[in-house]
């Protein structure tokens, strides 16, 4: 059975008496021990999708349709109480900003043991002992002293290590990491991602890595879902996606980043325009105003997800992989 399967998720926001759809028909799946990257720019709906899986959508936001099948069980239908039991135990989350997601007035120890006491029913002593082990496991030196400290006494990298320790403390099966290293320096980013990847591999945890960094995706993810304007517009294995991007937006993203592994003077090919305001209505494909391949159909009809080779892509004029182009000609 697939560990996590998200089907046709839709999320609305209510603002000034109007309803706006922020996420449309998002679908993807995740297996045990696998890393799935959700890639997108600001406003693409990637963080909202993660929050919906956690049952943590804020005020004014609601899950309108779709299924979130965790080991076959639909979390979209779970009661708040059931979700409370699941959170941490089965599905855990690592947030972007460890300064704002850790409680500033509670010690590291009290935040680390809370989940284990509540969810695993560990005794105070057992939880404290486990907390010490966890800090060791995430590579924090002098863990005895750190347990008694408060978030402001830790560096950004260490705070993120504590977040990871909290996330793995109750041995979840899925971890959602929302831009876990965006606020960190590049050498610390490398440490944190290597640590997260190792822990997930060792414990067979499925990792959903939400990021805008295409390099991180290439290094850590096996599968990728690309989001744009609230929709998943392409899904493929990381290798296929980078070798033969089918959606013009995916190709545009890949061509707009400067790269250390290519000659310096290759000009960047930016995508013209800007991503749509999430509350703005764009008829047809939401990418059409920025797309060089857009036709009348793109301006009128929303593209449906179709399979092209190993990719799923939502585009009326996808780019075909070279092999298929040859087949089409011959």
């Amino acid at each position, binding site marked *: 059975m697939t560990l996590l399967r998200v089907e046709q998720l839709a999320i609305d926001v209510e603002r000034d008496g109007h309803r706006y759809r922020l996420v449309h028909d998002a679908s993807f799946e995740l297996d045990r021990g696998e890393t799935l990257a959700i890639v997108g720019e600001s406003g693409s709906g990637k963080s909202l999708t993660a929050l919906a899986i956690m049952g943590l959508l804020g005020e004014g936001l609601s899950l309108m349709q779709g299924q979130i099948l965790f080991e076959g069980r639909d979390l979209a239908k779970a009661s708040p109480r059931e979700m409370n039991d699941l959170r941490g135990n089965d599905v855990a989350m690592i947030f972007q900003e460890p300064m704002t997601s850790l409680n500033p007035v509670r010690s590291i120890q009290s935040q680390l043991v809370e989940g284990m006491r509540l969810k695993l029913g560990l005794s105070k002593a057992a939880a404290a002992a486990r907390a010490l082990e966890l800090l060791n496991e995430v590579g924090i030196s002098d863990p005895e002293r750190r347990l008694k400290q408060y978030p402001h006494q830790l560096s950004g990298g260490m705070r993120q290590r504590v977040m990871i320790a909290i996330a793995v403390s109750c041995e979840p099966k899925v971890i959602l990491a929302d831009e876990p290293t965006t606020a960190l320096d*590049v050498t610390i980013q490398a*440490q944190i991602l290597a640590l997260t990847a190792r822990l997930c591999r060792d414990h067979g945890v499925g990792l959903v890595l939400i990021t805008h960094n295409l390099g991180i995706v290439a290094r850590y993810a096996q599968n990728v879902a690309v989001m744009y304007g609230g929709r998943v517009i392409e899904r493929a294995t990381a290798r296929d996606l980078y070798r033969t991007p089918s959606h013009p937006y995916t190709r545009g993203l890949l061509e707009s980043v400067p*790269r250390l*592994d290519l000659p310096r003077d290759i000009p960047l090919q930016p995508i013209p325009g*800007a991503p749509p305001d999430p509350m703005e209505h764009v008829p047809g494909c939401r990418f059409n105003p920025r797309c060089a391949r857009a036709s009348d159909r793109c301006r009128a009809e929303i593209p449906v997800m179709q399979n092209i080779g190993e990719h799923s892509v939502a585009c009326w004029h996808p780019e075909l992989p070279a092999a298929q182009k040859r087949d089409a000609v011959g």
Partner: protein
Amino acid sequence: MNADKPLLEVDNLHVSFPIRSGLLQRTKAEIRAVSGATFTVNKGEAFGLVGESGCGKTTVARAVLKLVDPSAGTIRYDGQDIANLRGPSLETFRGKVQAVFQDPFSSLNPRMTAGHIIGEPIRVHGLKPNSEVKSEVARLLDICGLPARFAGLYPHEMSGGQRQRIGIARALAMNPELIVCDEAVSALDVSIQAQIINLLEELRVELGLTYLFIGHDLSVVRHICDRVAVMYLGRMFETADSDTLFADPAHPYTRALIDAVPNPDPDAESNRVVDPLPGEVPSPTNPPSGCVFHPRCPSVSSMCRQEEPVLKNVAPAHAAACWNVGNQTRRHSEPIPETNSAGVSP
């Protein structure tokens, strides 16, 4: 590169900030934000400063903009020590050297229209008669890729990329020679970032601008800059032209920084053994002895713990501050250390 005249010469720059505490706010200690930065930027060149948070790159930028005063060392602009500038010559300097900041949200006044923001320096410095300010604003918007109607919009009515274009137009209003870009594209989404990078490159060629480009994203800095300096804890560790620095880094820290950047190529990444640099940047109030990088350095020797290395040439126009720099450049012929086996074969 032959007869280039240095526009900016920074010589042994030190900047310290006092830490005050207690009732009388006495100076208890000081943070040495920059301890000996030396570099020159030639006219028409893009010079990059890279490093992680706290390395002093922004403080260098602020000193060049004459927003903080050096505690030692000199900054010469067009041959003149900027510490001595007063009156009209200071005013000229303020016009010739402009800045573009990271956050287009907080660096534009939310209560002013774009036309007002861009037109203000023109009016204040009397660059154009009042009747021509409007057309000058329209011209500046146009070269930054925005239609003239943007003059009537407020910052909140624009996207991040558009706001950054306003920030650039404002800098250009003074007809500057040197633009200090402090993380100017860092806050932008990937697809927008490329637009602004291309705009900065076009403007540099068309207007003959010189850039001091501060950034933490190595691939962006490499793309934009002709030469780059790597900073760490207020020191300059290495400086070279971009191609050399990224292809053949001499300092172990530069190498570690480059290795830490994942490339958007799953095939290459899956074959790469990544050994992240251990530890974190130490506190500038209590820096390590000797080379400040030695606690994290993979090729540390006893010399490194005792004495601080100075920046010295390893090749023409390529300098590094490292005691083991000879070994580092010959690293490919060395036996592979057991911890990082098979790591480096590309």
